C-alpha cells in the first residue's frame, strides 16, 4: 500500500499494535542492545533498589512503539526523527509478562519539508508509559 502525502490529514489514525513483552523479550533486548543492567532481568536486584519488579528497558518500549509508525510507512529508513519521554515504568511479570498497546495518529503535516509527525500513545496497565512520543516521517 502506498500512502499519498496529499491525502493525509491531521488527526488521522494510522493504526495500532499490541506487544507482549516477556522476560525473554528483555533478555533478548539486553543482548541486542548491550544494556545489561540487571534490574531488567533479576527480581532480587530490582527489589533491592526499591522497584516494584523487573522493568522493561525504556529503550525497548521506545523501540517497539515506533514500529506502529514504521509499519504504517513500510520503511524504517523514513523515520527522520523520533523522541519520547519515559513517564512510567513497565513492570514485566515473570510468567505473564506485560502487554503494551501502542496507537498512532497524525499530529502535524509539514508540506514544505514533506514530513508528517506521528504521535504515538503507549499504554500498559491502563497507564500511558511514554510522553511526547513523536516520530517524524519523510515523504
Amino acid at each position, binding site marked *: 500500500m502506498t500512502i499519498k502525502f496529499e491525502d493525509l490529514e491531521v488527526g488521522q489514525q494510522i493504526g495500532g499494535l499490541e*506487544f507482549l513483552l516477556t522476560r525473554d*523479550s528483555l533478555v*533478548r*533486548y539486553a*543482548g*541486542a*542492545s*548491550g*544494556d545489561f543492567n540487571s534490574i531488567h532481568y533479576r527480581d532480587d536486584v530490582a527489589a533491592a*533498589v526499591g522497584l516494584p519488579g523487573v522493568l522493561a528497558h*525504556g*529503550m*525497548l518500549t*521506545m*523501540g*517497539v512503539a*515506533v*514500529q506502529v509508525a*514504521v*509499519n504504517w510507512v*513500510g*520503511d*524504517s*529508513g523514513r*523515520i*527522520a*526523527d*523520533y*523522541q*519520547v*519521554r*519515559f513517564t512510567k515504568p513497565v513492570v514485566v511479570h515473570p510468567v505473564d509478562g506485560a502487554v503494551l498497546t501502542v496507537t498512532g495518529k497524525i499530529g502535524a503535516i509539514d508540506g514544505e519539508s514533506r514530513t508528517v509527525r506521528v504521535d504515538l500513545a503507549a499504554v500498559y496497565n491502563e497507564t500511558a508509559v511514554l510522553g*511526547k512520543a513523536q*516520530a517524524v516521517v519523510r515523504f
Partner: protein
Amino acid sequence: MRQTRPVVNPNVQGKQYPATAPYLVGREKIREFAHAVKSVSPVNLDLFAAQAAGYTDLVAPPTFAVVIQERSLATVLADPEAAIDFSRVVHGDQRFSYVRPIVAGDELTSVLTVASVKTLGAHSMVTFETEIFDIDQQLVCTATSTLVVRGDE
C-alpha cells in the same frame, strides 16, 4: 541541616568527550536488534527488500543509534570528574535525529557533549548530546539523552 553534595558535578556542563573507536554496523547485528524491538520492517531484515528500496544494505531500526550512544555514555559514566552514580540513574527522555538512516557496513564514531546539568532539589538532570559520524566524517545522527540521577531524599 545536612550538607548535600550534588549527585552530578555541575562543572562538566559543556565538556566534550573524545570520539569513540569506530563501530562497524553488521548485518546480523541489525537483524538481531530488529527482532529484539519486534520489527517486521522488510528493510531491517531482508537484503533484497532493502536494496529494492534504494539502500546499499540492511537499514537499522530507528532506535539502533542507542548502541552507538551507549559507547559514549560508558565513557562519561566512567569519568571520575562527572561522578555519576549509575545505580541512581533513570532514563528521562531520548531523541534521535537522523540526517540519513544507519545501514549495515557503516563505520560509526560518536562524540558526546554534556549539554546541560540541572539540579532539581536532591536530584540532577543531565542532558547528553551524542553526534554520530560515518567514516567520511559526515553527521549521520544526533542522539539526545536526558538522565535523571536520584539524590538522597
